[in-house]
């Protein structure tokens, strides 16, 4: 081996997408402008921009806004309304007439949230906001800072002590349904099924205004209307306009919905459900128990009428479900969609918020190998069935966002499919060097392609490298055995990012793969001439090199080199494997677009470290074969 001669060949499989990168230049530095130029009070505050865009008469510093006092970021509080503005610069806040709090909104004491109850209405507000709402509506608002969940807050409003507030007048006993606090009258009593004479204003806790015992001017069950939380259910209303109990059903043959009447006492839905399993006015917006969603609506001719039902009942629970591609969709259910040519599986997370796919999965729809292969131009959208209509929402273009599917709990033990557009956090994939870091879904959206797959195996076996250094980010030796002997593999984006044509070169370079091939001079070690033989890999048929690796056309001979290491890198299989890594980095390499057209020769190039380069015969054919398999 004394005469062995090594030649180091750098082979690049390079993704190319036309438009050169725009490199940020210091010739146009950015300033933190207190305000941009412009008229009016909305001109843009605390914005990083070239000095020419800054308002001349206001402050500007060649620095990030985070480092300036005038653009210090905190919370803006409006003491009159009690509202808080998050992430507000000091100058913007003061200009808006707010009080600047140098804390994040979650920490600002004035912005802590609680439950504000205004009679039957409840919402999550700040304390000041609650007081303000109470003043506006002339109601004594009650505030509970210990309740911060919307559902608990609503439940609290429903447990208020409601009853009939009866006022004795010349025209009879007038009544409104309200809370004890709002009524303010004396406590009324019922004896032997009839009210006892008392003060002019009397409160009968738990009674409906139409209760016979109260002998008010209000006749029971005069009409139905949509009421309750978000007007979801069908309720009876008396002739004075007071809400009664939920509608349970009334035939033409009956005059009173007796179950709902409940002997003139206020009843919640659960109470009435104990008396009848079919509470007709209890609509189910989200759908459960086989229902796909209903909501209270006014009856129309189109809806058809129930001949058996009383004409007093003018509302019903209208179906809010949808049918999509022949499949029933529950109200508020949402799902992901993408272009027909995008065969990338839709990302799914389970009820524990973990991605369903992983490197160990053998399912072609969930295995790591099935991800990151979006065609150029592919985008994601999500759809939702809402109140009987299907609504579309696009995720950010260039796959800056991707759609994921999961489930949400809609009742005690029932989950409903939901979809969301989420940020595609692919950026740090390439620098991950082990499977656990790569699959850390809390911090990034990547998958680990392990050496169990053919393409990674060949790259690993040949010590192939992903090697670009960009702006201080060194990405190298990703698949080198020595680096991580136990976890040979490559970390790639779960969903390949799309390019807008301004930065593809840079990223595609990152995906370039190199392989070092070692040649040994042939048997005739004393031969004078150096050349590449016909089966050689980086030299042309007629190219000839001297011992310094320079072309010398005068040289001839029959002796060649023998590849002693990484011969695989000179073959189609290696190039195809490298391309598979390449296309996962974005719109790089040889792949197809959403129209099904192949990006062929201009999607990659193969280079050697010495001239005149080389080609792998029949490579594109092999790549096309792989692409066709993916379609």
């Amino acid at each position, binding site marked *: 081996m004394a005469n062995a001669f090594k030649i180091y060949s750098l082979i690049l499989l390079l993704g190319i997408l036309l438009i050169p990168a725009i*490199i*940020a230049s210091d010739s146009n530095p*950015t300033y933190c402008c207190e305000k941009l130029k*412009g*008229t*009016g009070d*909305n001109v*843009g505050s605390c*914005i*990083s921009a070239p000095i020419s865009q800054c308002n001349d008469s206001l402050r500007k510093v060649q620095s990030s806004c985070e480092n300036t006092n005038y*653009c210090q*970021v905190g919370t*803006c509080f*409006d003491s*009159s*309304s009690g*509202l808080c*503005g*998050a*992430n*507000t*610069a000091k100058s*913007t806040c003061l200009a*808006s*007439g*707010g009080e600047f709090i140098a804390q994040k*909104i979650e920490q600002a004491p004035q912005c802590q949230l609680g439950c504000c109850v205004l009679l039957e209405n409840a919402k999550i507000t700040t304390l000041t906001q609650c007081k303000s709402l109470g003043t*506006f509506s002339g109601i004594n608002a009650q505030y509970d800072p210990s309740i911060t969940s*919307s559902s608990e807050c609503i439940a609290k409003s429903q447990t208020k002590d409601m009853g009939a507030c009866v006022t004795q007048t010349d025209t009879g006993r007038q009544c409104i349904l309200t809370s004890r606090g709002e009524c303010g009258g004396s406590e009324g009593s019922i004896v032997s099924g009839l009210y006892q004479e008392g003060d002019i204003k009397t409160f009968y806790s738990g009674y409906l205004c139409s209760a016979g015992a109260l002998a008010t001017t209000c006749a029971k069950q005069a009409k139905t209307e949509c009421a309750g939380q978000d007007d979801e259910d069908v309720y009876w209303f008396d002739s004075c306009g007071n809400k009664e109990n939920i509608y349970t059903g009334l035939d033409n043959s009956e005059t009173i919905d007796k179950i709902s009447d409940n002997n003139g006492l206020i009843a919640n839905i659960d109470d009435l459900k104990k008396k009848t399993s079919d509470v007709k006015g209890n609509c189910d917006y*989200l759908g459960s128990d086989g229902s796909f969603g209903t909501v209270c609506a006014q009856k129309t001719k189109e809806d058809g009428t129930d001949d058996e039902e009383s004409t007093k009942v003018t509302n019903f629970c209208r179906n809010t479900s949808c049918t999509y591609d022949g499949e029933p969709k529950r109200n508020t259910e*949402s799902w992901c969609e993408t272009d027909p040519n995008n065969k990338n599986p839709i990302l799914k997370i389970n009820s524990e918020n973990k991605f369903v796919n992983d490197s160990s999965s053998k399912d072609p729809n969930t295995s790591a190998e099935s991800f990151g292969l979006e065609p150029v131009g592919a985008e994601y959208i*999500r759809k*939702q069935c*809402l*109140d009987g209509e299907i*609504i579309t929402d*696009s995720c950010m*273009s*260039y796959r*800056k*966002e991707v759609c994921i599917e999961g489930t949400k709990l809609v009742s005690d033990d029932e989950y409903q499919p*939901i979809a969301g557009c*989420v*940020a595609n956090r692919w*950026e*740090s994939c390439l620098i991950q060097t082990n499977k656990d870091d790569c699959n850390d879904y809390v911090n*990034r959206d990547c998958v680990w392609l392990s050496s169990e797959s053919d393409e990674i195996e060949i790259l690993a076996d040949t010590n192939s490298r992903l090697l670009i250094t960009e*702006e*201080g*980010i060194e990405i190298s030796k990703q698949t080198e055995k020595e680096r991580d002997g136990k976890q040979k593999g490559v970390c790639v984006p779960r969903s390949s*990012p*799309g*390019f*807008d044509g*301004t*930065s*593809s070169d*840079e990223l595609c370079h*990152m995906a370039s793969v190199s392989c070092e091939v070692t040649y040994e001079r042939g048997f005739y070690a004393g031969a004078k001439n150096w050349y590449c033989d016909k089966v050689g890999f980086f030299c042309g048929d007629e190219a000839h090199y001297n011992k310094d690796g320079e072309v010398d056309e005068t040289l001839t001979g029959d002796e060649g080199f023998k590849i002693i290491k990484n011969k695989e890198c000179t073959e189609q299989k290696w190039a195809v494997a490298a391309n598979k890594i390449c296309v996962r980095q974005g*719109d790089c390499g040889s792949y197809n677009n959403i129209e099904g057209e192949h990006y062929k020769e201009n999607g990659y190039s193969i280079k050697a470290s010495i001239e005149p380069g080389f080609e792998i015969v029949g490579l594109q054919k092999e790549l096309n074969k792989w692409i066709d398999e993916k379609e």
Partner: protein
Amino acid sequence: MKERGINKKGQLTLFIILGIIIFAGIFAFIFWVQPTFISNSASKLNFDGCVEKVMTDSITELALTGGYINPGFSYIYRGQEIPYFIYTSEYYKPGLNQNPFPIKKFEEELSTYTELGIEGCYSNSISKLRSLGFDVVEGNPKIEMIMFPESVRVMVNAPTTISTEQYQEFVIDTPTNINGILEIVNKIVYEEALYGTTDTFELMTTNRGYLIQNFKQNDGTKIFTIEDKNYGTKYQFATRSYVRPAGFDSDALLVALDSE
């Protein structure tokens, strides 16, 4: 018989005299004493309908430009200037709040935007009354506005005398759900400022009766539209927060990696 006839004549004369005295008294009271009937109803001036129309039209118009008469710092979307409520020019960073109190801002802008219209309603009404022959003394209207959860109240303080009636202030309530829309705007602004993302589907589930959409632009700007299905009012504003570049950006990438 004769006595009875004299008595009857006397009674008649007495009634006539009493009638004249009463009539003269009323006449004197009206023209010399000039009683004051103070009312805050604008219906006498046929004022309510005009103001309600001004308010409704103005709310509809202002809502389309995020409550700004002059949107200023904005994104042009379908030919319309949509003001940024949250903005950063940088990648991977939270946007800063440009309009911390959208409700208050809307109220201020609406007040400015409708002032001329409401004054016009008032003066047109005065002119009409004059043309009908009424003697009208008009005041210098001062307008105040309050937004309630389900209406906007306009209070026009304009001491006005119509013949013998005096008015001090006119109060006109215009039903609108703009407050409901603005509450949703607050929620979106909060989410976008802190996280750069808002689930419009979830918002629609919890705020029924609204169509909430999010039109994402290539530069990372999002145009939010909130449409009240009952009133038809459509509110629009733009955000730019936690924007990611398309593909690779060296500087941005460093920021992203640092933030991990």
